[in-house]
């Protein structure tokens, strides 16, 4: 098929923030996650665990606890002392209330989702009522000194268990009084160290489960104040704990990166007496596991190594499918890199700054696998720092490289970048039009003449860019039927005729840019769109969904193409469908109209529509096999998916010109070295 000159870029110094807390929506299909930088993410189980929503962080707002209340309302609380409610359609903080007890360490919602309890630095536990449009302070519980690090409601909502340092307490919700106080290190003699109760769970049987800094998971009878069972899990702290809805399984996370499952099992087969037994150990993380969650079918853990691991419980699986795969997410399901093809520039988005790099070049050519000598090194041109505590939502560089735009929660910035020889000048474009912020996605047109801004309520703004550094608002598109959610993906055709936009309801709207009209809507498919792009020649829209399905939709004809129908009829290869990370970027090769270039974190793929699709008996990743075959024998083995897994983890891949690719990698080891050292564990007795 051909050789590519690959610019292998590893200087994108992204360090994903560690996972701080997790919250499964009760009886729902969503998982909320907060990172140490304050970012909140929502994963959708139904959409193949797609990272559906990202609310970027804020330096002034840490999140220590997340919880779902009143159905699908998400609340967060942190060391700033405020309880914030998140607007999941506008992806920002809707409103926040001061807790009044200093930094908040913990928060829990009752089973009906009508009340929130928070545990504060000053040792107080406060109750808030969840009311439409906000929350209202209700009452204080009996206060003692010692920060409340964890909280749990009894399923009947009558009592709250709270973990503190050296002790746990149980409150009566209606009277607010402490009805039990248990010293957790009462049994450990001569201990000088304090014992921190990191996590707590209140079971309906009246058992309180705690995990503490001594590495123990303990089961207490709260009424009697007696210890029922104690399991020492680790030599270091057990930081997190979560109970399944049926209360028959518990997952705990430790500071050594190990997670363990406990199960309530009969002591003998057929026996009525059940006991908690440590059943499965897992070691997926290298750092502290600060957060765990237990969904009905999976154990979920998040660590300071930024990994989110979803380990399905095979015994709960009906059949082998998407749900049965172990998933590890380290990087966002979203592009943080944009590329100026013509100018050969890369723009990297960090949480609070942007970096603009110029790629190097070579004069040589070589054979497969060779590393070519560089005649020009890559160059770090500009670093743009965002002011204020807000983190960046999105950014983009224009294809010509002379425009850079980014948006935070409250501000939108457009810069004009000029290159004179070796020097670079950056000029901020004054008087950008007032828009409904934040912007969720930015996209320049192929001729760099227009900028498209994805906004809330399904709207897309079109800005006209003016030389030598100005802009004006041209139009705002809005879906005819309306849409409450923000647009999160945009695609524009090379001829500047069409614009495709995807909102939070996963509907894809296509707008005509010539006459500023809504053109059509792609038939709804009940899965999240992870990437889309418009073919430069045929104007076919290629769509990748989170269930790994691929569709091709002809915009002029307003229908799926014949190839797309053929793909749906014959089905994609099993190995393709079982991949666990979504396609994050699609692009095309104008010289080879039948080629679609796509990638996820673990692979880069050239999809050749002119070749037959592989059936399940064929090998999907067959490149290395093909390379060993003689030319004549190859023909029979060829199929449409040409997959390269050499570059991992792949954050971005794009085609610069017909045989020149850029691949942005972020080796896990590179950012692991920037994380704080994990707890050293002895290996092999050394």
């Amino acid at each position, binding site marked *: *098929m*051909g*050789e*590519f*000159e*690959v*610019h*292998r*870029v*590893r*200087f994108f110094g992204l360090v994903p923030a560690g996972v701080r807390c997790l919250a499964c929506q009760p009886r729902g299909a969503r998982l909320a996650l907060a990172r140490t930088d304050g970012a909140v993410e929502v994963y959708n189980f139904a959409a193949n665990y797609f990272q559906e929503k990202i609310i970027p962080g804020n330096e002034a707002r840490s999140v220590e606890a997340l919880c779902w209340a009143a159905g699908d309302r998400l609340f967060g609380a942190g060391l700033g002392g405020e309880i914030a409610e998140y607007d999941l359609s506008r992806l920002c903080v809707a409103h926040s209330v001061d807790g009044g007890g200093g930094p908040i360490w913990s928060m829990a919602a009752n089973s009906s989702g009508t009340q929130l309890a928070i545990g504060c630095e000053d040792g107080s536990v406060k109750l808030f009522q969840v009311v439409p449009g906000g929350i209202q302070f209700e009452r204080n519980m009996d206060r003692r000194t010692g920060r409340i690090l964890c909280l749990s409601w009894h399923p009947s909502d009558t009592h709250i268990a709270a973990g503190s340092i050296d002790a746990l307490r149980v409150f009566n919700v209606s009277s607010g009084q402490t009805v039990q106080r248990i010293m957790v290190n*009462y*049994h450990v003699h001569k201990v000088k160290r304090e014992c921190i109760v990191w996590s707590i769970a209140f079971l309906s049987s009246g058992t309180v489960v705690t995990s503490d800094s001594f590495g123990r998971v303990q089961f207490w009878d709260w009424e*009697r104040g*007696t*210890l029922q069972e104690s399991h020492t899990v680790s030599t270091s702290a057990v930081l997190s704990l979560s109970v399944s809805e049926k209360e028959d399984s518990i997952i705990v996370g430790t500071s050594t990166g190990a997670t363990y499952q406990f199960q309530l099992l009969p*002591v003998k087969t057929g026996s009525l*007496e059940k006991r908690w037994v440590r059943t499965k150990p897992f070691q997926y993380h290298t750092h502290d596991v600060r957060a765990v969650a237990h969904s009905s079918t999976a154990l979920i853990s998040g660590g300071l190594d930024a990994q989110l691991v979803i380990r399905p419980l095979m015994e709960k699986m009906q059949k082998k499918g998407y749900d049965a795969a172990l998933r590890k997410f380290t990087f966002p399901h979203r592009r943080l890199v944009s590329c100026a093809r013509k100018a050969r520039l890369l723009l990297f988005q960090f949480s609070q700054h942007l970096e603009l790099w110029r790629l*190097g*070049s*070579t004069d040589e*050519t*070589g*054979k*497969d*696998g*060779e*590393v*070519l000598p*560089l005649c020009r*090194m*890559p160059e770090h041109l500009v670093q743009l720092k965002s002011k204020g505590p807000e983190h960046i939502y999105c950014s983009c560089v224009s294809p010509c490289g002379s425009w850079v735009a980014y948006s935070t929660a409250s501000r939108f910035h457009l810069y004009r970048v000029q290159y004179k020889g070796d020097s670079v000048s950056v000029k901020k474009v004054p008087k950008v039009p007032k828009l409904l912020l934040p912007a969720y996605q930015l996209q320049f047109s192929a001729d760099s003449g227009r900028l498209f801004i994805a906004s809330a309520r399904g709207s897309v703004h079109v800005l006209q860019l003016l030389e030598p550094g100005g802009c004006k608002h041209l139009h705002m598109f809005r879906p005819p039927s309306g849409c409450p959610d923000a647009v999160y993906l945009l695609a524009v055709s090379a001829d500047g005729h069409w614009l495709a936009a995807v909102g939070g309801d996963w509907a894809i709207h296509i707008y005509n840019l010539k006459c500023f009209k809504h053109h059509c809507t792609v038939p709804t498919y009940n899965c999240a769109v992870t990437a889309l792009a418009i073919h430069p020649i045929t104007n076919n829209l290629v769509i990748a969904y989170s269930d790994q399905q691929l569709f091709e939709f002809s915009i002029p004809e307003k229908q799926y193409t014949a190839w797309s129908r053929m793909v749906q009829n014959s089905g994609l290869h099993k190995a393709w469908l079982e991949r666990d990370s979504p396609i994050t970027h699609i692009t095309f090769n104008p010289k080879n109209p039948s080629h679609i270039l796509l990638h996820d974190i673990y692979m880069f793929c*050239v999809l050749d529509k002119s070749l037959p699709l592989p059936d399940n008996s064929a090998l999907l990743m067959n*490149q290395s096999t*093909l*390379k060993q075959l003689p030319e004549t024998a*190859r023909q029979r083995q*060829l199929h449409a998916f*040409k997959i*390269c897994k*050499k570059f991992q983890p792949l954050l971005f891949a794009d085609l610069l010109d017909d045989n020149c*690719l850029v691949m942005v990698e972020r*080796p896990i*080891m*590179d950012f692991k070295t920037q994380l704080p050292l994990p707890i050293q564990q002895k290996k092999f007795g*050394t």
Partner: protein
Amino acid sequence: VSDQKPLGCWSVKHGQIITCPVVCNFETHEYIAVHDDKVLRIWKNKDINLDKVFKATLSADVYRIHSLPNGGPVVLFKGGGVRTLDVLLEAPQQEIENIISDEVIKWSEASMEGQQPVLIFATEKDGNFFVYVQKLKMNRLQKYKLEQQELSKPLSFTAYIKNQIITLLCLYSNDSVYEVLIPLQQTSEEEEQILSKSLILKLSVSGSVLKGTSFVVLDKDHIAILGSLAAPGEESKECLTIWNTKFQTLQTSKELPLGTSGQLWCYEEKFFFTHGKVLTVMMYKCETSSLAAAVGKLKDSQTPDVSSFVNWNTLADEELVVSFQSQQSVALKSESKMTLRSKRNTVAKVQPDTLSVGQILLNLKDASTTVFEDELRQLMSKAQMPDFQASIGCVITALIKRCKTNPKYYPRNFLLHIVETRDLSYSLCPDLMSVALEKKDVHLLQICLQRFPDIPEETTYACLKVFLSISEAYLQRIDVNLESVICYIDVEFNNKEVKTEIVENGFNAELEHDIWDTKITKETHPTAGELCPVGPQKAALLNAVLQSAYSEAFLLPHLKNLPAQQAVLFLRYLYYLYVKCSEKINTALPGTRSPTISQIMDWMCLLLDAHFTVMVMLPEAKELLSNLHKFVRAQVRFYSELNKIEGSLQELQRRNHQKDSQTYSIEVLELI
């Protein structure tokens, strides 16, 4: 329990005495106490003052109240009358009959049989003991008299119900536990029956005797006894013991230096007993008992071809059934199993209706050799016999018997065939190996060693001795399975004479080679480890010994008897194997059924333990020992160096990775 705190405390008024243990009604969560023999008190957790709670005064003295998990409490009166609490509370002053006249209740227990509560109690009068079984729902009382025992009397009782049979265990003052079986469904009502008892356990271990005070049944093979262990001439120690009744062994014991009150309870795999001033709770676990476990010979599960051998558990189960049924009629079907269990029965017991294996064997007792063998072959071909495994055992026993009586008779091939094709075990045919040893049938012994999972150490040792003592010349003529040695043994030493003077380009290559060789060997290999000290046949036989299961404690005393010369030879061979193992990177010998390095090392250690003083004294062993020492030291050094290299390699890998993690490169990628 380390964290003991009372959850509730109630007391009666001064002058009143609580006269029977307080029980909890599990259904209503009420506590029931009796004070002053007649006054019943019932209260709940919330009640604080015992004086103000429900009170009922009864017309007769209460012996004890039993609380059943789903049957409600049952009250046993001192006169032997039984009422459920509900019935009693309806009319507290109702008349209670006196059944047992002037007998005194010694013990009582209640349990559920299906849906009906059953109360069992034992009484005493003038040294006679009686057992009463009261079925409450049917209101039927059965009285039995316990068989008299001279010079001793029951101290403690415990009972459980299984399969409609009450098993009553009695701890007698002669330090024995007896078992009494009482069928629940008994029709003959009028006369008093005498219960016979059978001894199931004598509480003595190597001279010391356990004076039991109380005991509980853990499962069908295990009982736990609390008592004091008294050895002659020593102070007695109080301890908790678990005994295996099937094999009459003391499974475990725990000393209780602070003393106990002599009471023991057991609930959900935990013991409860007082130890000093605290209540101690102890978890226990009883594994399914097997003879192998009882004598510490549970075979390694990783041994590859474990043949299925006699399942002791099923056998024992059936035996149990037999003993039950034997009260009414003799069990018919398990006859053949019985024959194998005790040898004297092998031919003695005859089955009238079906022609059993025992019968055939009896018939063949006096037949001629050829007829005998033909018949046995025929018998063997009947593959679908019900107790095939056991029958095979009988066949072999018969064969061996014949061998013993007729010293000239030895069906070598027939025995070999049986051992090779059937899954046998040592315990199924214990005499087979001793006969084979007598006849020096090393091939059969090799097969037995490879196949039997339960050879006693004594026999293993006897095999080893025979193998070592047998001459190489004799072995050359014998067919032995060589698959365990064929892959590694070097036949070089045989060719040594052939490879004489080879002149290459005018030089004597051999000479030069020799010099070179000795140099090398001096530097790297100890000379003794070079060549195999035994022939391949002997090596194969020794390998069979190396791979058989054993426990050190039992083997060591026998191994001490090995003559010094043989011990040195064996050690030399082990050393050779060890060197061979160490040549390979995975420290494993090639080929199937070859011994593993840990088996070799274990035997080497064992042999050295057994013969160390002799070895040190023997001049010919000296060099071997010093070579062995040097080699082991070299190995230790080698591995420590490897550890260092591992570190360096990791560092290299890290650097390599760093080089790899250049931040930017332009590479060529070809997609086909």
